[in-house]
C-alpha cells in the first residue's frame, strides 16, 4: 500500500465517524480535535475503525501521531509497512 492509500483510508474513516464533515473541507494540517472538533469518543472510534480496517493497533500514547491527515499518513505508512 502506498502512503496515498493510507491517506485516503484515513480520510474515509474520519468522515465515517464524523458524518457531518465533508472530506473536501479537511485540510492536511487541520488538527482533528482542535480544528475539526472531534471529541475523545470520536477519536477512539477512528482508532477502532483503523484497527479493524488495517490491522494497525494505535496505542493511546501514539494518538498525537494521527492528529492531522499529514501526520496520520506518515504514521500509518510507517506502521503498515
Amino acid at each position, binding site marked *: 500500500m502506498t502512503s496515498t492509500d493510507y491517506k485516503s483510508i484515513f480520510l474515509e474513516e474520519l468522515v465515517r*465517524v*464524523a458524518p457531518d464533515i465533508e472530506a473536501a473541507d479537511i485540510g492536511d494540517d487541520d488538527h482533528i480535535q482542535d480544528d475539526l472538533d472531534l471529541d475523545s469518543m470520536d477519536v477512539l472510534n477512528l482508532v477502532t475503525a483503523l484497527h479493524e480496517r488495517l490491522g494497525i493497533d*494505535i496505542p493511546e500514547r501514539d494518538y498525537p501521531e494521527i492528529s492531522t491527515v499529514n501526520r496520520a499518513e506518515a504514521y500509518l505508512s510507517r506502521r503498515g509497512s
Partner: protein
Amino acid sequence: MGVFVMPSLGADMEAGKLVEWLVKPGDTVHRGDVVAVVETQKGAIEIEVFEEGTVTELLAELGRELPVGTPLAIVLADGEAASEARPAAAPGPAHAAPEPLTKPELPQVREPRQAIEPPKAPAAPMRRAPGALRASPAARQLAEKLGVDVASLTGSGPGGAILLADVEHAAPGQSEAKASPMEEMRKAIAAAMTRAKRTIPHFYISETIDVDPAISFLEKVNADRPPAERILLGALFVRAATRAAIKSPVMNGHYLDERGFVPSEGVNPGVAIALRGGGLVAPALMNAGAMTLEETMAGMRDLVARARAGRLRASEMTQGTITVSSLGESGAEAMTGVIFPPQVALIGLGAPHLRPWVVAGEIIPRHVVTVTVSADHRVSDGRQVARFIAAFENAIQTPEEQ
C-alpha cells in the same frame, strides 16, 4: 387494544413530522420495538411502542407535521377485535386517543401505574369548553392576518387553547419559510433552557477532585486492550455519577408541576453530546445503574454514534433522570450548567488540568477536575448535594470498584 399516538418528546414539543414507518399492517410488535421515525427540532428520533400486539392499521401519512397526540396506528393485543380499537371517525387532534401506547414524557417512577398514564395536555388535546374561546394573542393576530376564523379551530394547547401552530395548520399554503434544522435545534435548546432558568431555582456546589488515580487506572487497563475495548475518562465520570445517583435518590428523578418531585427507580444518566456546527443533545443511557464500567462505555459509544447519525430513540430523549455534561479531555477548567427540565440535577465537569496539589503533606503535580453540581432547590439542599459530590469523588478515586 390501543391507538399509537404521536408522542411528546419534550415539554416544549407541539408537533412532529412522521418520516418513516418501520412496521406495516400485520406485523407483530413487542414492548420497546422501534416502529417509526419522527423528525423533531432535535433531529430524527426513533419512536418505540410500549405494548405487545399486532399492527392492524397505519392511520397517519408520511411527511406531514402532526400535533402531539395524533393517532398514528392501531395496535391490537392478541385475540382482540378490530372494531374496538378504531378511533372515532375523522381522526385528528380533536379526538383524545383512547389508550395511547406511546409512552408520554414521564420518568420511570415508583408507582408503575404512572408509566401508562396518557400524556398530559397539550399531549392529549381536550375539547374546548363551550362558550369559552381561548386563543393566544399571537394566534389571534396571525388568524386575523391570514383570514382564519379562530372560532372554527380546535385548539391543541392546555385546556383546548388555540396556539399559533393551530392557526398555521388551518391556513395551508400560507406557511412561512421553514427554519433550517440548525435553527430548529437552537429553538428547542432556547425553549428548554429558558424554561429551566425561569422555573428551577438552581443552586451550585463545586469540588476539585484529584483524577490521577483514575487516569493511571485507565492507562493500565487500556494498555492491554484493543481500541474497541478501551475505556475513556468520560465513561468513568458517567459511571461515578450513576453510582452517586443510586445513593442519592433526591438528585435522580423528575420535578412535575402537578406532583412535585418524583424520584426515579432506575438511573438513566443523560450524556450531553456537543454537535459540530453548534447545538447539543443529551440522550439518556438507559438503566445505567445495572451496568459495569465496560457496559457504560459501550453504551456511550453507541449513543454518540447514533447522536451523530441522527438516530436516537424517544425513550432516550425523554427518560433521562440526571445529566452529565463534560467539557472533554482538554479545555476550560469548570462549568456551571443549566438543569435539563424536568430533571433536578446536572453534573458539570471541567477538563483535567495539571495543578500543584497536596497529597500526604507534600505538594506534587496532579491532574485535577472541577465538578460542579447544579441542583434544584425545590428538591434538594446543600448538604444532600455535598453528600452526592462526596460519593462521586469516592467513585472516581476507586475506579477498580466500578
